[in-house]
């Protein structure tokens, strides 16, 4: 009996480790491929802006878990939101991000990412892929990609530039907007809808 228990314990703890141990190489490879594709197909390519936007939207939505980020961003308001509000928010948030980022392609011209290994996050199922963007003058820009595995696929859930987390920033901004808006979540949705058009 004792043996069986021990055996079960061993299997359980192994399962725990296997679950907790997000594959660093896989995560790093995913970010590397994404940045390589982004630079080749968008930043350094001669394609039309329209074509670039299309490729970007595809890369962006495939590699970032915007459902996960969207929920984090709404914070405690996620709980009180109706199913329709949640759905609308996720869709608008996706569109708004794609639209905003598409305008920033030129800022990355001539830049590259240098990969600096991975670091652990405070959640064992997530990790940081550390990169640096060298600049002509001064210290390179520190860019961290927060990655987790979802349904067997590596997904980015946050990008942290010089300690500034995009998810955290949006969360502060959006939850404060909802708190101040007389219409609450609907006020935020209206604002986003107007911006996305």
């Amino acid at each position, binding site marked *: 009996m004792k043996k069986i228990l021990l055996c079960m314990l061993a299997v359980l703890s192994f399962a725990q480790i296997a679950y907790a141990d997000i594959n660093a190489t896989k995560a790093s490879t995913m970010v590397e491929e994404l940045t390589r594709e982004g630079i080749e197909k968008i930043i350094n390519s001669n394609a039309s802006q329209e074509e670039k936007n299309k490729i970007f939207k595809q890369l962006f939505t495939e590699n970032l878990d915007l459902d996960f980020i969207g929920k984090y961003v709404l914070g405690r308001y996620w709980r009180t939101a109706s199913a329709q509000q949640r759905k609308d928010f996720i869709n608008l948030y996706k569109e708004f991000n794609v639209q905003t980022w598409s305008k920033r392609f030129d800022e990355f011209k001539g830049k590259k990412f240098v990969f600096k290994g991975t670091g652990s996050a*405070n959640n064992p199922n997530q990790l940081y892929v550390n990169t640096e963007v060298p600049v002509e003058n001064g*210290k390179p820009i520190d860019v961290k990609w927060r990655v987790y595995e979802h349904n067997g696929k590596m997904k980015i859930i946050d990008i942290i530039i010089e300690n500034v987390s995009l998810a955290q920033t949006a969360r*502060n901004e959006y939850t404060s907007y909802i708190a101040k808006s007389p219409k609450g979540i609907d006020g935020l949705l209206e604002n986003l809808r107007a911006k996305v058009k």
Partner: protein
Amino acid sequence: MLNKIGKYTAILMMCGMCGCASTVNDEGAQGESSTLESYNRAMFSFNNKVDKYVLRPVAKGYKAVTNDYVRQRVSNFFNNIDEPISAANHILQGEFADSGNNLGRFAINTTIGLVGLFDVASSMGLEKNKTGFDETLATWCVPDGPFIILPIVGPSTPRAATGFVVDGYSSPSYWIAQESGGEDAWLVYYGVSGLKYLNLYAENMSLLESLEEGSIDYYEAVKSMYLQNRSKLKACGTSENGSADYDFDMGDMDDMDNY
């Protein structure tokens, strides 16, 4: 103007000592009192108007008459002239090797680098390692105080503002202006500092524009980013940079699979 800023700073420092602390992880208001927030928002919108109607046109003009190469030299020059500030502060933080690194860079770039126009030291392995009095205060465990928008200067905290003023007075460009400017020393200093910030602004103008476009509450976004970025300063009593790691699975997330 700067005298006014000095006065504001004194008030803000007092406010900071009263212990009105601000935290970045709070949702929404980010720990800001409503009186301070309404002042901040008013000053923020004033600064944005100055940006739009004064700074941006001037910076565009400056960009039109300079090229990347020139702006890079200007930036190098100011980085070099401030190197002794970093050297002094590294000593105050107990990091003597880093201080030596700053002095080495200053010696090399001022001479071989033609008064700092070229950053030769970096290619010789002496990497840029900037610090200031704000970071020194951080390592001495002086609390940051609340988020505050200063006139013209922009986002700050009482501790950051103190660092800004102390660094300004200890900058060699201030002492050189004092030495050579005679009665007009202040004018020389403001002129020189003006060029320093104009150059910085011109380089980051498009980034600011796209940040504004990409936000629904620009003030809240700037505040959040500013405070998060400050977490990179060395933490209290250490020589380690702060980390941006935060819990991504707060209580808010426990029903995330049910939508």
